[in-house]
């Protein structure tokens, strides 16, 4: 699509949407959001960019092959599930770190569910973007 306005706006939009998607991913545990929604938002951003600039630029933006992204995502989710096995818990049990916790506040809670969610995010981004790139390239 050769539209200067769309092209310029899309570059702005993609940055914003990627940033927003990470925000959604991060806050997902406590507020509406999460890996799946975040991934969809990121993919939408990338697709808007791709509609303006073409599939080659989408690949450039992603840096890695979408299929690789999907596999990394899947592996991340599985590893997040396997980690608790090390401490003798069942597959996919949540393991947590509370950084800077006090008696009244849990501080910064980081856990394997977040890693799992990042995996979900990557699979969704890679899967959706990969399908659109393939469509754009082949049709």
């Amino acid at each position: 699509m050769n539209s200067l306005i769309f092209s310029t706006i899309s570059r702005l939009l993609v940055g914003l949407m990627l940033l927003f998607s990470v925000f959604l991913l991060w806050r997902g545990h406590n507020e509406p959001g999460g890996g799946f929604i975040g991934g969809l938002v990121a993919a939408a951003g990338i697709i808007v960019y791709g509609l303006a600039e073409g599939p080659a630029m989408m690949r450039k933006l992603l840096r890695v092959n979408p299929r690789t992204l999907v596999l990394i995502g899947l592996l991340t989710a599985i590893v997040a599930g396997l980690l608790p096995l090390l401490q003798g818990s069942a597959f996919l049990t949540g393991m947590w770190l509370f950084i800077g916790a006090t008696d009244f506040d849990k501080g910064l809670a980081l856990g394997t569910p977040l890693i799992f969610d990042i995996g979900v995010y990557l699979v969704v981004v890679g899967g959706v973007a990969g399908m659109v790139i393939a469509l754009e390239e082949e049709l």
Partner: protein
Amino acid sequence: MPAETKPHTDPEATQGIGSAAKTAFACALTTAILFFIAYISQISAISSGTPWVFNAEWVPRLGVELAFRLDGLALLFGLLISGIGILVFVYSFGYFKTHQSHARLQWLLLSFMLAMIGLVSSDNIILLFIFWELTTITSFLLVGFDHESSKARRSALQALLITGGGGLCLLVGLIMLGQASDSYLLSEIIASESPITEHAHYPIILTLILIGAFTKSAQFPFHFWLPNAMAAPSPVSAYLHSATMVKAGIYLMMRLQPSLGGTEEWFYALSITGGITAVWSSMMALRQTDMKLVLAWTTVMALGTLTMFLASDLRIAALAAVTFLIVHAFYKCALFLAIGNVDKRTGTREYDKLGTLIKHLPITSVAAVLAALSMAGLPPFIGFIGKELKYESALAIADQPWLIVAAAVAANAMMVAIALTFVFRVFLGGQSTITRKPREASILMLIGPLLLAVLGLATGIFPDLLAKSIIQPAVIDILGAPTEVKLSLWHGINGPLILSVITVAIGALLFFKLTVVSRAINNLVEKLPMLGDTTYEKLLNGIQWLATGLTNRLQTGSLTHYLTIVFSAFVIAVAVALVYQPVEMDFRNLTPVTPLAALVVVLMIGAAIVAAFSDKRLLSICALGIIGSGVAVLFLVYGAIDVAITQLMVETLFVVLIATVLIKLPRFPKLQGSGKARDFRDGMIAIAAGIVMTIITLGVSLAPLDLTVTQFFEENSLAKAYGRNIVNVILVDFRALDTLGEVAVVATAAMAVIALLKVRVHPQGPHS
């Protein structure tokens, strides 16, 4: 028939063998030796009546236990499997040498041996079935070892389909047996107080289990796969298709005889099937000229004979079966390996072309002659004792003795003729037409045949080597009752001896008139309706024809067609269910409709009408997008924010994706055959699907809701998973395994879409 590998190209030394093959061989041999020693060490305990038992839980809910039990019968088979295994592994090492797939063969043989040992040691019937199938699969891989030959592939598939099909019947039979006797442990089933034979399902159980045993042990009419399986290399045939795997069916019948045997059904099923198999296959053996095929058919004969004697629950019949099992394993394996040597060294297995091999292959010939004499049942070989026992038990079986006696004498006479042919036409006498001067096989390939042949002689002269220690415990397990076993060569002049003399006389006559006899058999075979292989071929073609027809009707490639089928099936299935179980609806329980929700719904209805009646693609897609977004807004109205966002994103991406595709296509072409009638039909299906969906949705939302699960999540989300967004906590913590599955589905679907799009279809066709 060509030799499996080119002779005279292999060096005598073993230095050319790859390290992978050496590793595989070392593993296989070590395992076999360890098992053999373990079995030997158990002989004294088991023959004094103490089985070795091992139990561990596996799938307790399904009654599947890792239950192993080593008793007399298991010991007999275990010794044969591991002992012959050692010899076959060594032989294969010399036989395959630098063959590029040598390592694969050794690993496969090892896997097969382990499966077979598992099969005969399992006490749990489901575990037994699992090992049973493992032997089928390894046999498939071994028969198809030479996978570049289409004949080998066909034979492998045939063996797999027939024994696998029988395996399925066996599974059902075993489960029913387990249900009927309230235990999945063989030892408990056999020791059970209430006999299965009086159970209402006994005929079905018996039929299913016997189909399993008959297919595996190549009984008529399933016998034809075994001669075809001779596409396998000689050591494989020797191991699987004579000494071990095909005996699995025999093992099963021996094992279950105390439980299922002793009835008229058992007696007639086994004696008639076994009798037909034995006589028919010995006739088939007589007409072959390829020595390996001769051996294959005589194996079928042996299996038939064994089945025939297992029909009776007399002590002497069980003794005859066990003894003959050992006799057969010794001579048949030795002969297969010897023929393997002949094939390898001369390049042919046709006995017409071979003669006086003792001059060139002295040790192979000695082994083959000794084994053949045992096969003929001549004294002082153990084959003689085996045959005397067969005749004694045939005479002792009260019902229809002459049928069994006649079958046994006929089959044995033909064995004599075949043995004489081997001895006097191939190894000791006869004219060779091959020009090459073959050399004797390497030592690795001589140990096996020679040792087995000598064993046949030694155990004949000293039958007490086997009688008390190995044969007696096995016979006790078959009978389910204690007994004493004594074996000797000389019984005095009695019925069996007279029958033996008659047998040898007929055999000699057949040998001298072999050309006439085999021509007569060939004429007979041509007149008979073709059985077995042809039927199998027709059945397979029929299945293919049916599948092609169905696929062509269902997979038309038209999306409209698919959707018509899917939605019609949905409407009919749900409508039928609703008629039988109507949904109770109490509209007083409905949530009040807000004005916003009403507005959104009106918008969605409008969009639906536009989508259905528009003839512009983009407009239809956008209208569909509006419907989806409307759903998202409804989610938002009723407080499901996460679901609303997801729905909105999916809807947006859907519109973008579809638009990307459709924008590149021409405008809606007028569909073929579209018209008022078709539009009406599609409209009706759509409306019906809508109505059915509405009823379901109302039914579901009006049903009283169980809030236990919701309460659990509300209470534990923050406390245990440290998250306030319950939806997300469910996704990544409480039900993370579901999410993992879903993510894997997304990944697979994306990969498939990408792969499909990237496929380059060649103008000439999709396969080039």
